[in-house]
């Protein structure tokens, strides 16, 4: 039997390395209060430093991932119990039209919404950095403010404004005597969600870009000015190349955010249940599979497949960014 001779607190005068020792097989534990270990075979001191991190990392990152992988290899049914099915859940996911519809939807979202959001964020950051604006802290805070509004609240505010019978849209219709299409209708809902997400995250991305711009050495601007570079020349030749790293990071964050779209459609579902399906986004699909359909195993497979796709796309974005850097 293996017994570990370790105590919670190192007694005074005993060094950590001696203290944190796993004793050899068969040694008895009883009565050993603070005595020195004769055979200190390994230096464990490093674990004191990485241990807490490794523990948390293992618990909240590795363990759930391993558990999801484990789950995805089984199928538990309401009748018939649990059975090992190997990779069947993955085979099913790869040909599941609902899953791919969801993937297509977030891909469209990614291709349309992310450039708009990052473009606006970049524009705002450049404008704030241009030294031609007064009240810079005021604008910076105003643009950032939506990010500080909790996502749930933001969606509820927008959901109210989108209302075409009693919301802001209804008021506009009545005031101008027009008939705007309902933003909560099935054909416009993705656009409406894109609008909410843009509103929420422009400020966040602006801040990333703005702080990167602040780190650009002043000498570069001075040199450019001496060379006769105008404002736009400075932007394209100095500012944008200097913050390329920040742009790549923001893009990767946005890619991941798009694939993980969940909060906005999930909350809007309560006011527009007929416009948002249970498989609107991959995350929403996995959520409904497990919590409404008790298909935990299949949901785990869906989550892993969409996680892998997200990783691949994010990696490609990074690769493309680095490649450009190398050639420029």
């Amino acid at each position, binding site marked *: 039997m293996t017994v570990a001779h370790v105590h919670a607190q190192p007694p005074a005068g005993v060094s950590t390395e001696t203290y944190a020792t796993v004793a050899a097989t068969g040694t008895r534990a009883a009565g050993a209060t603070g005595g020195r270990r004769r055979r200190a075979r390994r230096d464990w001191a490093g674990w004191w430093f990485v241990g807490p991190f490794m523990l948390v990392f293992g618990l909240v990152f590795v363990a759930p991932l391993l558990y999801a992988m484990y789950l995805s290899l089984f199928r538990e049914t309401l009748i018939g119990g649990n059975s090992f099915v190997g990779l069947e859940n993955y085979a099913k996911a790869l040909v599941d039209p609902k899953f791919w519809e969801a993937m297509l939807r977030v891909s469209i979202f990614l291709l349309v919404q992310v450039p708009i959001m990052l473009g606006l964020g970049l524009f705002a950051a450049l404008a704030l950095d241009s030294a031609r604006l007064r009240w810079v802290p005021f604008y910076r805070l105003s643009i950032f403010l939506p990010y500080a509004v909790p996502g749930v609240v933001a969606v509820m505010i927008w959901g109210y404004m989108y*209302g075409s019978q009693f919301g802001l849209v209804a008021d506009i219709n009545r005031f101008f005597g027009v008939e705007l299409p309902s933003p909560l209708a099935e054909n416009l809902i993705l656009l409406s969600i894109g609008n909410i997400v843009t509103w929420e995250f422009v400020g966040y991305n602006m801040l990333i870009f703005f702080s990167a711009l602040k780190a650009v050495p002043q000498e570069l601007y001075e040199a450019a000015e001496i060379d006769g570079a105008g404002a736009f020349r400075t932007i394209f030749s100095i500012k944008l190349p200097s913050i390329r790293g920040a742009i790549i990071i923001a893009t990767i964050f946005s890619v991941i955010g798009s694939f993980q779209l969940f909060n906005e459609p999930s909350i809007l579902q309560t006011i527009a249940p007929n416009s948002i399906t249970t498989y609107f986004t991959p995350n929403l699909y996995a959520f409904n599979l497990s919590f409404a359909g008790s298909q935990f195993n299949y949901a785990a497979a869906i989550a892993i497949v969409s996680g892998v796709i997200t990783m691949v796309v994010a990696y490609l974005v990074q690769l493309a960014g680095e490649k450009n850097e190398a050639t420029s």
Partner: protein
Amino acid sequence: MEQITTRRWARLGAVVGTGALLVGVLAGCSAAAPGADSGSTDTDAALEEDVTLTWWTWSDSTQEQADAISEKYPNVTFDVVKLENPDAVVTKLQNAIKAGKGAPDIVPVEYQTMPQLTLGGALADLTPYGLDEYEDAFTASTWNSVNVQDQLVGLPGDSGPMVMIYNTALYEKAGITEAPTTWDEFATASAAIHAADPEAYIANSGDAGFFTSMIWASGGQPFTTDGENVTIDLQDEGTKKFSDFWSERLNNGELSGLATWSDEWTKALTQDKLGTLLMGSWMISGGMEDYGPAGRFKVAPMPTWDGQPASAENGGSGLSVTSQSEHKAAAAGILKYLAEGEGRELLNANGFPSTIADLENPEWLDYPFPGYSDQPANQVGAASAASVISGWQYLPYQGYANNVFSDSVGKALGSGGDLNEALLAWQDTLVEYGNEQGFSVNE
């Protein structure tokens, strides 16, 4: 010795942080000491002993009820946990059952999810504790709802025989002074209301719970379960009758698309833009006075197809004891107390009753509701309870069915598609899911 060793390993884990594996082992160790249920079925004896019962709920009044019960049974204390809504309770309960621990002792269950939770092994059979004695006290439809696969899995709480609550002002504005008694009259009223005010609608298009209840009230019986054999026919006569009718209203643009209980829906009701609620009788005392001045709303029987009274249940729930409860006898004893007499009054204070005696109580029947201009509205609900069509069954996975309703029928309701086609699409999803889950569906 083994225990000592375990504890040492625990310290090793704490000191050197070897990660998740050890912690998993420890969690496994600590979970292995359940204080098992004694197995006694003597409910009176169980209530003599000190016991704490966990009671999940979605209702605001449960704490009050629990306090009142504690006064009657001083040895019993309650730990009332309020959750957001019935769906949240089902999800949490299913997770607890799957995890093997964490379920409460007493839990409210909607009638429509009783089969699902029974199948999942979440609910205890209450017959051994003597609750079957109360059968005669309850209406046939609610007693039928708590009996699933030859087990008594709950005590009926409130009930929801459907009634029609309508906005008298909106109807009158359209020139209609009497509540429609048939669906033909309802159709006439519907067109008139929308014509008189293009922003006003007779009703909203509804959700899964509404749709199934309307099918039930139309004599449909799309779901049949016999053990593991399930039959789904969402094009049977009754179903088709209602879906044809509702399709016509929808395609005439006479139905509001607002989601029931949403903020906009509330506004539509208060601003006289939504004419009718077709709901369970729990809505009679459900705060209609918040939606308009006294007398604005009135309660009428459900319209019918042929003039003969026909109704269905919509909503309503019972109280169950979970299979994980370690105090089943005590929990069942509390349910017995709530089955009749003063205990029953506690339950009835907040809901439409399911007990025959209460439904026939003249004092209750004749109570004039100030909100409905002194109309004795309970009479309408009681008459509806007596005309609920018998034989209805929910699916053993109704929760899932209601969840994916929006993918097919909801979609059609939202964008004006063909409801019969949508019902067939819903059916396909339900057949596929059922077969995957081990049932024999439509085979």
